């Protein structure tokens, strides 16, 4: 492996916790991880290594952090308190901060209507089950505007504001 190009401070940039440096490659985070059965497999141990070794280019191109189902088994079982699930989120944050093609489209949906699903739109079905009309944020335009104004101040929305412009 060629380490001449590696960024020794990468871990500080991505996941600035000493616990990460205690990872001893035991693979506990992989056994029991549903996404380790994927193609390609999600191998948290390897991602931890990439961050510690500063393999920036490899990590930039890694799709596997996005296969995580957030079950947090790894977080529970890791004997060194690396918090592997938090590490996965940290890698995703680093990727989407440095590569706009990584920004998940779901955040545009949430910005636009508050949710990733069409909550409250199934009026007839809800009525047939005897359910009340929902006070969703979509039905509260003033609240929606405030929520959007608040999000506009957060880094991901500010940096990528062109994604959030109303058509």
């Amino acid at each position, binding site marked *: 492996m060629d380490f001449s190009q590696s960024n020794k401070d990468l871990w500080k940039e991505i996941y600035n916790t000493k616990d990460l440096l205690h990872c001893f490659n035991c693979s506990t985070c992989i056994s*029991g991880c*549903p*996404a380790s*059965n*994927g*193609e390609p497999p*999600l191998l948290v141990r390897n991602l931890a290594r990439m961050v510690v070794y500063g393999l920036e280019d490899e990590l930039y191109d890694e*799709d*596997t952090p*996005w*296969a*995580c*189902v*957030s*079950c*947090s*088994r790894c*977080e*529970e079982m890791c004997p060194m308190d690396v*918090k592997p*699930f938090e590490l996965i*989120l940290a890698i*995703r*944050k680093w990727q*989407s*901060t440095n590569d706009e093609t990584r*920004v*998940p489209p*779901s*955040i545009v949906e*949430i910005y636009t209507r*508050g*949710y*990733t*699903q069409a*909550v*409250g*739109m*199934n009026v007839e*079905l*809800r009525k047939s*089950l*005897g*359910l009340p009309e*929902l*006070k*969703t*944020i979509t039905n*509260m335009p003033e*609240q929606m505007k*405030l*929520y959007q*104004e*608040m*999000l506009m*101040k*957060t*880094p*991901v*929305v500010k940096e990528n504001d062109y994604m959030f412009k109303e058509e």
Partner: protein
Amino acid sequence: MKLCLFLGCNTPAIRPDVEQAIRLTMPELGVQLLDTEGYVCCPAFGSFPSTDDESWLASSGWNLSIAEAKGLDIMVECGSCYSSLRMGRDHLVHDKKKLARINELLELTGRKLKCKTKVHHVSKILYKDVGTEKISKAIKKNLKGVHGVIQYPCHTLFPSEVVGFEDSPREPKALRQLTEALGATVDTYSHELSCCGGAGGFTNNSPNEATEFAKAKLDAIIDETKAEFIVVSCITCLMHLDNIQKKLNETENTDKYNIPVFDYNQLLALCMGFDAKQVASISSISKDSIINKLK
């Protein structure tokens, strides 16, 4: 007790019969539910929690502040919503700098967050606050002689430090005992504590492997138990284990996968005598076999 009901998105939009089961059963057990008006996405782990802390925690803060203004705690069924809200709150409680920044953002919207509101999973409320005894007394019909199995929602177990409520997170028993309180016999199986595999990117990135993963669980249930139903308490587990059986039957040209999947509150509602059309009518695998067995 009074709680704010946080519905998330999948339950009200895709499986509103589960919402109705929760709304009808909890008040019968002394739990009054108020709506969380103007809530937004929890936010889902694949969204803002994967982009930056500010947009994640500002959204958590937005949701928490709605219940806090009412002076109430929050109750959630969806595992992802539960875990995202709990983890978001945990960050805010333990990091004063983050809380201060989120309050700057919330202030723009006329809100303030003290992090007084706690977040509970519905199965914790049922198990620890209501209790199995009260549930057994509240039902009119039961599942005596019917075998079932449990799918524990990962997000209510791990990391136990942040989300847990079981006395022993690696040997959970809340859902088992709650189901036994309805008279059913709960069998164990080898894949009981594995994930359903339905959340996040796994099913999108590796659809075939994700299907195989769920199939291994279903095969274990079929081969090792006498289960006639599966109990979950998470909308993702519910939709995934239900829908994947239909898919497996189609792709494998079989009718072997036909175990109805119930959210716990749906079973509870049926045992309390509520109309199946209102509380258990949406599914890929019909729930009639169990509905007809209730005595």
